């Protein structure tokens, strides 16, 4: 089992046991992490699951697809260098211990 920690803009944290192969969005939704609304259920259609990843994980994943890039450019919370839509990032074992930041909208 892979453990992830979601950190809110106010600094509060929630650690969650994550199943590999699921998306970060599904993990956050299941745990009721605030700020991850995911209205479109993972279609990269709404940008309401915006997160900021650690630099090393972001680099390892490779760049997002063009559609996700464009959605991120105008997400409600301003895009940061390591921003991703959490519905487009699947959990892998090497993410164990990762802290995922939920940006302030």
């Amino acid at each position, binding site marked *: 089992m892979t453990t992830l920690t979601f950190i809110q803009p106010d600094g509060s944290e929630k650690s969650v046991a994550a199943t590999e192969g699921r998306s970060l969005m599904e993990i956050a*939704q*299941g745990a*009721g992490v605030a700020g991850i609304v995911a*209205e*479109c*259920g993972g*279609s990269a*259609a709404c940008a309401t699951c915006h997160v900021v990843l650690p630099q090393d994980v972001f680099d390892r994943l490779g760049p997002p697809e063009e*559609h996700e890039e464009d959605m991120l450019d*105008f997400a409600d919370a301003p895009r940061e260098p390591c921003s991703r839509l959490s519905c487009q990032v699947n959990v892998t074992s090497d993410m164990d211990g990762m802290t995922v930041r939920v940006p302030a909208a």
Partner: protein
Amino acid sequence: MNRVVIVGAGQAGLSCAAKLRTEGFEGEISLIGNEADAPYQRPPLSKAYLLGNLAADRLLLRPLGWYEEQRVTLRTGVEVASLDRAGKRVTLSTGDTLAYDALVFATGAEARPLPDTLLRGRRGVHTIRDRADIEALRPELDAASNVLVIGGGYIGLEIAAVTRGLGNEVDLVEAAPVILGRVACRETALSIAALHEARGVRLHIGQGVASLSGQGRVTGAHLTDGTEIAADVVIAGIGAAPRTALADAAGLDISNGILVDACGRTSDPSIFAAGDCACYRLPDGDLRLESVGNAIDTGEVVARSILENGAGYTPKPWFWSDQFDLKLQIAGRAQPDDQVVVREAPGEAKSHWYYREGALVAIDALNAPRAYQVGRKLILEGLSPSPEVIADASRPIKDIFNATRAALPAI
């Protein structure tokens, strides 16, 4: 306020339950659903789930442990048989009664069936609303060669795209002169029609189904222009009707849905409604939407109203549809006589911008996420670049956005 009973365990019911807890409500929450499943996402049913690309447990909106953790009593496979408003309690199909301080209708909508005069008891004719509908359809599709889709709305078009992708011959019949007639502008409809035709879906626009053929099981259809179509499976996507029977029987006001005020309250102050089943009476008119965004937002509006810290519903309509390799994203609410401005800029795909009395009111983006995001934000913020600026393909959308926001001269 100690006991909240929510009738309907879909997106709106779940949204209400979750919001009650995040707002600090400590009392009892009962969530009652007539399907066997815990609350799940419906949009993938006509897309990834039908294709078999998504396991059933990944449709769930929350893992089962969430209900226990949040002390939400989930009862699935149960109907509410009756409502006693004076006694403030509901009786379930199991015979149990539940008392409430606040009752929420989140009963959704149901697919309109084809008329019996067409059906005549034939097998092989489907509608799509619930996961069970997909389970019934899938084995028939596996054995089918020819699929007839009746209705050129979103469900019909998504189903046509998926079944075509599965290798079937697909005919789609739409009685109106254009597909998506009620929900998209002519320009969007023509683009989507062209996509379907390019992928081999045979569109029969402006045609009705005069009769179905086949004894016992459907084998085809005759259209009103005399065209004969072979069909092993017929799928009707001809709209949905709000589920209001229980509310109606209890004497609540009904008008194209369960009628509620801007706070989601029905004509009985202890009873609320959210999602597809609810018609919100707002300052600028009545509004009943069938969409995920509306279900989430109105579920939350009702939760706050129950706790008496509500601000009322401010609709932020948005919608999406996946068909073949097209992602259509819509923000705002268009009307048939809005002015439509076409934007087709390099590297940005195509978008249609709707203006009413000079103000931007809606956008349809076709594989154009950047335009969608910009349009959505401008609409939310009440900003309107001029139609000429939007139509100017030489200006990147980001520049238009920044200039409009900064209230700089738009040219």
